């Protein structure tokens, strides 16, 4: 799985951090930061959930 984030779209809701804290973080303004763009198998369900609920549609996944 490959993860991309669109930082200018991010609205800083932090939903992704709540769902996959090992993959997503937020800077001081709340903007998403990727901790890894290739999450391990144990984190992938959380990443899929995060991409689905992101209120800015700012997370995109490529399943490999």
């Amino acid at each position, binding site marked *: 799985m490959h993860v991309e984030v669109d930082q200018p779209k991010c609205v800083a809701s*932090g939903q992704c951090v709540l769902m996959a804290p090992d993959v997503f973080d937020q800077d001081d303004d709340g903007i998403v930061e990727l901790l890894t763009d290739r999450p391990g198998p144990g984190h992938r369900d959380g990443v899929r959930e995060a991409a689905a609920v992101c209120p800015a549609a700012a997370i995109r996944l490529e399943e490999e």
Partner: protein
Amino acid sequence: MTTAAPVRRVVIVGASAAGLTAAEALRREGFEGAVTLVGEEHHLPYDRPPLSKQILTGAWPVERAALRRPSDLDALGLDLRLGSRAVRLSPASRTVTLADGAELGYDALIVATGVRPRRLAGHTAPGVHVLRTLEDARRMRERLGAGRRLVVIGAGFLGSEVAAAARSLGASVTVVETAPLPLARVVGDRVGAHLAQLHRDHGVDLRTGVRVGEIVAHGGQVGGVTLTDGTVLPADDVLVAIGSEPNTDWLGGSGLDLADGVVCDQHLTAGPGVYAAGDVARWHHPLFGATLRVEHRTNAAEQGIAAARALLAPERARPFAPVPYFWSDQHGVRIQAFGHLRDHDEAQVVEGAPAEGRFLVAYRTGRRLTGALAVAMPPKALHPWRAAIAAETDWRTLPTAPLPA
């Protein structure tokens, strides 16, 4: 519940955030049957929060509001019926009828038809706007700019965001609101007063505690707004932002309970094989002990997913009990909140200070912490409060100092 027949055909009515997210969730959970996604608008699914922000200011091209890339939509293998309006639900035959007469049979149905803006009766002159669709936003954007005069009726989130966007474009903006403070019933007097001052600091002429008489048109073009005290506010454009109504007309006669939305149980079930999600859904929220209908973007996605899961595995469904979240951008200031704030009993500033422009407010309803709102605070400051709301924390046990992160 009796043993249900396997679900082979799912129809989702509504192709915005809730409907699309539900369709994606069905596929993610491994559902390989037919999924028909019906949308009244002609556009591929797009996002609405940017309409009153980046789309209205022109900071983004409209394509940037797309919820998914066309290739991602293709990969879902949907029967996508855009520009199609559902006009009838026949639960006995499990059929949805579209405006063109097509009949869609379903084993399970998700109603995600959202809301429409409330209007002022009889006002259709050019220059009188509502803002819900991409077309609405485009129409406004073409007309707003320096030297133009906009009157916004209603100082809710939408009206306030449009006022801020219009000011950033150089328009003169007047906002009229019947309540003494903007948004006070939701966010409380302290935050409402702060938002009022924010408008005034940015040159918005905010008139609170006033009632609109009528919208005046001259020669088929809007000319202004009169207030019941006799005041005349000249305008080139008027935005009517006085709330929304759930799109449930098409469900009349279906037997579903339609009391301000589609009434569902805790698992989002509205009837046999019928589920609801998004702005249109009203359900009993176990965390707040209240029946809620939530018109926020995050809820649409969370509820779409929950409805899809409940549909595929009713026996494993858990009550839908999220901590609601919303945000609003006004004059470059971000407001974020978790929980159920409306009709709270008490609001306390618990971090920062309104005078400094950065603060966090906690809300009590009954004996419990039920909400938290941050103005211009680092968003992570809200996370411990979200957790405390989810944990049904007693108000008296809250520390007066910030909660540990």
